[in-house]
């Protein structure tokens, strides 16, 4: 029992379960999943479907935060990728041509990668603080997205494009399949290969890593590029889900939600360690919270307050120092050394 309680993912899981239980009480049929038009349909499916872009962005953000950086530009990259893809598709003669859509998707993702490399070069090459370096693209990028769409909402009518964010494959939402693939790939690269260790070591102490022969610069550029690529895919999902690109609003404030998801998932903002599973749980918690608000009918005027309350509780429960204070009588005998959130020092 205590081992279970002390597992680093215990609290995120507990919170997610609590939120779902709240819906069990307040909303009829919340857990009912049925087949409709040959695909799964229900509130739980909605949560993963609408949560998919946030999970992707948060995955990229996790690796960036693990290097003790931060990427504020993801929201803008979301808007740019969606805008560029929709612009390309709207110029196609036949919007349903698979080749044309693949080309548009390719161009949008290629631009996302370029933007990621730009962030990486600013941070690793020139040495600008990550929060400032990515702020540049956060502010300028939204302007770029508006430039691409001419400030308008670009509507497309393309069924292959629609599949990415709003379609289904093998009864499952296609977006969640993409997320599963990206998650599996990330987990493989970081946990089976040395990349994860390198990222954690750069996040723990970039200088010491460099002295011990790790190319810190290369690692940093890689994670910022990966983060932008994830944001680009998320941008395609968001615009595909509504078959239109909205340069003003697509991905607005998603960077903050992503950072929150990462933190709820137990990754320290100080860098040096990260948890992919925790991040996925964090993103699901945020989306469940949003869906819960709509389902149980929290009035819009109090929505933000309600969210703030839940997030505060979540963060407090996540904090070892807080738990130590509140539960210390029960826990002290078993856990003499609480988990420290200090930076991991990597010694060569």
């Amino acid at each position: 029992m205590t081992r279970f309680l002390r597992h680093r993912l215990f609290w995120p899981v507990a919170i997610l379960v609590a939120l779902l239980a709240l819906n069990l009480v307040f909303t009829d049929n919340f857990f009912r999943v049925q087949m409709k038009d040959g695909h799964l349909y229900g509130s739980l499916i909605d949560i993963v479907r609408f949560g998919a872009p946030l999970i992707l962005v948060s995955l990229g953000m996790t690796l960036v935060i693990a290097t003790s950086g931060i990427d504020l530009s993801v929201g803008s990259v979301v808007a740019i990728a969606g805008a560029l893809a929709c612009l390309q598709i709207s110029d196609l003669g036949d919007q349903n041509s698979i080749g044309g859509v693949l080309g548009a998707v390719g161009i949008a993702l290629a631009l996302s990668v370029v933007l990621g490399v730009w962030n990486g070069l600013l941070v690793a090459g020139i040495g600008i603080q990550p929060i400032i370096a990515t702020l540049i693209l956060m502010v300028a990028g939204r302007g770029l997205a508006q430039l691409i769409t001419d400030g308008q909402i670009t509507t497309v009518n393309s069924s292959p494009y629609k599949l990415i964010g709003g379609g289904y494959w093998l009864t499952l939402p296609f977006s969640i399949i993409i997320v599963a693939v990206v998650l599996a790939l990330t987990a493989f690269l970081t946990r089976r290969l040395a990349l994860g260790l390198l990222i954690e070591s750069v996040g723990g102490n970039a200088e010491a890593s460099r002295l011990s022969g790790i190319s810190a610069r290369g690692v940093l550029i890689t994670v910022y590029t990966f983060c932008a690529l994830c944001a680009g895919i998320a941008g395609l999902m968001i615009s595909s889900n509504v078959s239109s690109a909205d340069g003003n609003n697509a991905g607005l404030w998603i960077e903050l939600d992503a950072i929150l998801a990462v933190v709820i998932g137990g990754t320290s903002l100080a860098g040096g360690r990260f948890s992919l599973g925790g991040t996925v749980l964090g993103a699901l918690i945020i989306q469940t919270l949003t869906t819960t608000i709509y389902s149980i009918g929290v009035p819009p005027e109090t929505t933000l307050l309600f969210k703030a309350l839940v997030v505060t509780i979540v963060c407090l429960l996540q904090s070892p120092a807080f738990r130590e204070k509140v539960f210390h009588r029960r826990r002290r005998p078993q856990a003499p050394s609480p988990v420290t959130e200090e930076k991991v020092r990597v010694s060569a």
Partner: protein
Amino acid sequence: MLKRISALILAGATALTMAGCSGGGDGDSSASNGSSGGGDDKIVMGFSQVGAESGWRTANTKSVQESAKEAGIDLKFSDAQQKQENQIKAIRSYIQQKVDVIAFSPVVESGWDTVLKEAQNAKIPVILTDRAVDSKDTSLYKTFLGSDFVEEGKKAGQWLVDQYKDSKDTVNIVELQGTTGSAPANDRKAGFGEIISADPKFKVIASQSGDFTRAKGKEVMEAFLKSNPKIDVLYAHNDDMGLGAIEAIEGAGKVPGKDIKIITVDAVHDGMQALADGKINYIVECSPLLGPQLMDLAKKVVKGEQVPPRVVTEETTFTQEQAKEALPNRKY
């Protein structure tokens, strides 16, 4: 003097780069030499636009620019890119340029007193377009030209009441509100609520904010469809949220416009198309084409004539048949 002119040019240049709009270029460069004399009788108007965030706004801009040309008014146009500080800068530069009249659509409601006082001290009349300010001192501006959002809500409610006048069953309504706290969201909700509250059979069973966007409209509607088994009517505060909701309704295996009747506000092109296709049942127009009315008011104000403090834009409503007729001639 030289200092002043160079400062002005600098300000103009900054405003241009920030706005990133190519259209305003010629207007601004002619500003420094043309208007300062004020000898010719051509009226000079400084107009500060919110931004170019939607088709609606672009149509609004075009209408102002075109009708200025027709009315023979020299228009100095600037785009604030949704930022109040840009708009204040633009208004200050118009005051320095000594334009004859300033018109603008405020990005937000509050925080305008100082800059409006500056205009007043410079004896330049101000006209608000499309959006109001919450200033208590109404002498700071001459008139407010724009849509009456409460009236729009009432029109939407009235159509609903007429549609269901022969039925005795309860009508379950869900509402997609605009951005929480914004004037159009508050007023469209209030006007609609006022009309339907006369008959207890109309029930708003769920009402949430969809932030005026398609993505949020879809997401919220998905949740509504799952938590409320029986929805008869959807009232969305703008077309875009309605369009998002249509996708959600179709995804749930229902037919938008038939299984669930849809009322929206705005009448932008995509919305009118959906109305003509039978997916939306009724659209209350919120017309951006207020240019001609604005120019008339500007001429009167400059001459010193009295104008009413509140002028409502000329607007209409559309049924599906009317949409099919109107669609080919729509400007936006």
